[in-house]
């Protein structure tokens, strides 16, 4: 059955895609594709074109709210749409929807939105680790595992049944039969069999905006890959002229200055992989983000060498994302394209601004590797 709205809807989609009414394109807002980790609140991007009106600036307007709090207390942001009975359609809805949603659901939505294929496992053996869980109760066992409460209950039951219990002197003496013990069951748990190695250029030319783009992008890559594999490990490498491994927080915060030697990062990544993640057991995903301004062409050829010999052969996919910075020449992606472009496992993506993040995620994950 076709709906009347389909015509208007496809016209709107065409505007969003930039096919018609190009003048409106610059007014499209996508909302932010970002997850708030704490409460796991996540906004879902829905393209929106505001119809401009004479309206009040929002910041100096303020408003009236309801609830607890002293003057000076902060207000929670992003009160979402209220589900409920009512005449929808008249009011100006919130443009960015914020919802309680689990990361798994989020990954599914992402997959659906971008029509990402499920990843084909390389067919590597899935390692299972055994773990004992104390979930059951048995009649025999070591004293150290005696379940006090259950034992007491049994003793109480017995003494009431046999008529020895008196409420005035509620003394319970457990006998051997009353004793109950905790028992364990062995659980098989899948262990991580995929690893993501994030590498980021933190040289002077990478600004805050560039890092924010990397942060958003790696959040989504993380979310998607975690959905695809039972367990996943992440390693973080930052580099300028030298590379070092850092934790997640440092990865996104550090701002160094100085030159750029991309090979240093590839070197370190290859070392980590060889040491900790044998290719026969692991699905390996190196991701590298940079503004593409490498120190010298010598270093670039060294990079190619490491890639060809040590990284690409073991990886499921090697991904390189290039952000635009005002200083960078952006040469590196061209070199990669020239020398590694034919390599199936190498995925290159250009990310000029935030709007391009979605497309770039699709570049990276759209191949189902």
């Amino acid at each position, binding site marked *: 059955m076709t709906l009347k709205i389909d015509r*208007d809807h496809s016209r709107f989609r065409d505007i969003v895609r930039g096919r018609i009414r190009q*003048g409106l394109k610059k007014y499209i807002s996508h909302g932010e594709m970002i997850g708030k980790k704490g409460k796991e609140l996540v906004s879902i991007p829905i393209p929106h074109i505001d119809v401009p009106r004479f*309206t009040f600036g929002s910041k100096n*307007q303020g408003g009236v709210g309801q609830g607890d709090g002293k003057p000076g207390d902060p207000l929670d942001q992003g009160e979402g749409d*209220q*589900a*409920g009975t009512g005449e929808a359609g008249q009011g100006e809805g919130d443009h960015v929807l914020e919802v309680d949603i689990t990361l798994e659901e989020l990954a599914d*939505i992402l997959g659906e939105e971008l029509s990402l294929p499920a990843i084909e496992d390389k067919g590597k053996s899935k390692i299972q680790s055994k773990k004992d869980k104390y979930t059951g109760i048995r009649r025999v066992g070591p004293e150290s595992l005696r379940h006090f409460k259950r034992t007491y209950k049994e003793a109480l039951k017995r003494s009431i049944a046999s008529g020895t219990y008196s409420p005035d002197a509620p003394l319970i003496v457990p006998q051997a039969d009353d004793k109950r013990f905790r028992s364990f069951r062995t659980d098989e748990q899948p262990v991580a069999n995929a690893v993501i190695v994030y590498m980021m250029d933190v040289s002077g030319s990478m600004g805050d905006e560039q890092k924010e783009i990397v942060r958003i992008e790696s959040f989504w890559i993380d979310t998607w890959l975690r959905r695809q594999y039972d367990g996943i490990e992440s390693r973080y490498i930052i580099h300028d002229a030298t590379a070092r491994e850092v934790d997640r927080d440092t990865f996104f915060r550090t701002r160094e200055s100085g030159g750029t030697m991309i090979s240093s990062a590839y070197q370190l990544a290859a070392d980590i992989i060889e040491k900790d993640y044998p290719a026969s057991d692991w699905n390996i995903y190196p991701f590298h983000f940079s503004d593409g301004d490498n120190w010298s062409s010598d270093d670039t050829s060294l990079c190619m060498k490491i890639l060809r010999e040590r990284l690409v052969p073991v990886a499921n996919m090697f991904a390189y994302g290039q952000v635009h910075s005002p200083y960078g020449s952006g040469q590196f992606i061209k070199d990669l394209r020239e020398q590694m472009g034919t390599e199936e496992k190498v995925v290159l993506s250009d990310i000029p601004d935030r709007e391009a993040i979605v497309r770039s995620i699709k570049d990276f994950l759209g191949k189902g590797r």
Partner: protein
Amino acid sequence: MAALGFSNETQLPAYLRKEQDKIEAVARQIGLDFFPTVFEILSYDRLNEVAAYGGFPTRYPHWRFGMEYERLAKSYEYGLSKIYEMVINTNPAIAYLLEGNSLTDQKLVMCHVYGHVDFFKNNFCFRSTDLDTLGRVVPTELSREGYDPNRRWIDKLANHGSVVRRLTARHGVEPVESFVDSCLSLENLVDPHSPFIVRRRIEEEAEEGPQEPVVPRLKSKDYMEGFINPEPYMEAEKQRLSSEQKSNKGRFPAEPEQDVLLFLIENAPLEKWERAVLTVIREEAYYFLPQMQTKIMNEGWASYNHSKLMTQHGVADFSEIVDYADNNAGVMATNGKSLNPYKLGVELYRHIEERWNKGQFGRDWDQCDDLDERRHWDLQLGLGTKKIFEVRSIYNDVTFLDEFLTPEFAFENKLFTFEWSERRGGYEVATREFQKVKQKLLGQLTNAGNPVIRVLDANHGNRGELLLRHDHQGVDLRVDYAERVLEALVRVWKRPVLVATKLEEQPVLIRFDGKDHSRVEGQP
């Protein structure tokens, strides 16, 4: 409802029809007075479609409705929210139910709908949506017996739809659509009071030019005349009026005009088709205006009545009470710290009902400042029900809150104001002081939440430029939007357009001449 075209497939199933009859009878019993109400049942995509069109599936084509549809459809698919119901202000009223809702939900929705329809019929604001036989808007006097106005807006909006479609066929999609875009930017430049008063008096100009201004006199008995209309004051007024008359001489419009849309329709150099489009936009803007003006009252009234019908008049049976309460709690929830119009409205009606039941009004009550006495004040008048029915007829959101929001109510409901804090980079609680809370709330509702903008001069600088004035009430305009609205205005007016406002306390003129935006400090 042949105009809808799908009435056959959307007919109510028998078990719901039975419920409808039952609910209708009970609703009449508790005093609700509504138009005949037609329920239709729709699948979720159909309901989303209808909601995207603002309730009218036959509206004019525009991408904006497609955008709204996408938002609704996505929200539904992701399980974020769904529309339970939609009711539109027509006579007979049409309400849409969502197929697949539980019976309890459907009953709740029906009760809610009867609350809305009663409100549409009886609240004075909606008088401005009465039509005459030719489909023109005619505000009528207050309710009489057998009030049965013509509100065939389904037909009217369908006519609008075919007007726009016909123009599109003749002039092409792109020009018509982009002109509609421009008009939509002006949609809120309306005068909410204009349907009820005569703004413009058509004065017969005497041939020998304007006469001496007549100063209006207050009524008085002979011996009081000198005190009530003192001579020196009358003289000063006369001076003032005549100097005003001189300075306004040749000014057009003579008085600042708040119905900017009407002003443009009458005076802008528009093509015939452009005028037709602008007229469509203006009529629909005025149709939806009463709903903006009574959001809190309307939702509050519907919620007040659905809870009364469901719980006290046996619409829900015992097995359904828990489901009902769960759903109702969801509707009434104050999410985070934002204000929920449903909740605010329903609580305020209950507050009024209680006050009038206990006689907590009038001079004695106002003058009593013994807290204990006030707390136990109960004259057992039982006037509550009568009062809230009166309130729902003759107030809108602004007057409703102005009159009935009491310090006690604000305290019990924990109302506060919030402000943007530069230091925190977010909003924070500002104060719980009653006067300030009330002030803020009223400020936000005034003029349906829109800035007051008037046409001041259509021949500014003697260059045919259009000068608008923003009545600055302490909140600045959003400048990037204002500039784009000026672009839309230039599209309509075809000469430079200016708006006089204040930015950060400084008087400013924002101007667009068709090519460049500029800003000049100072007043016109």
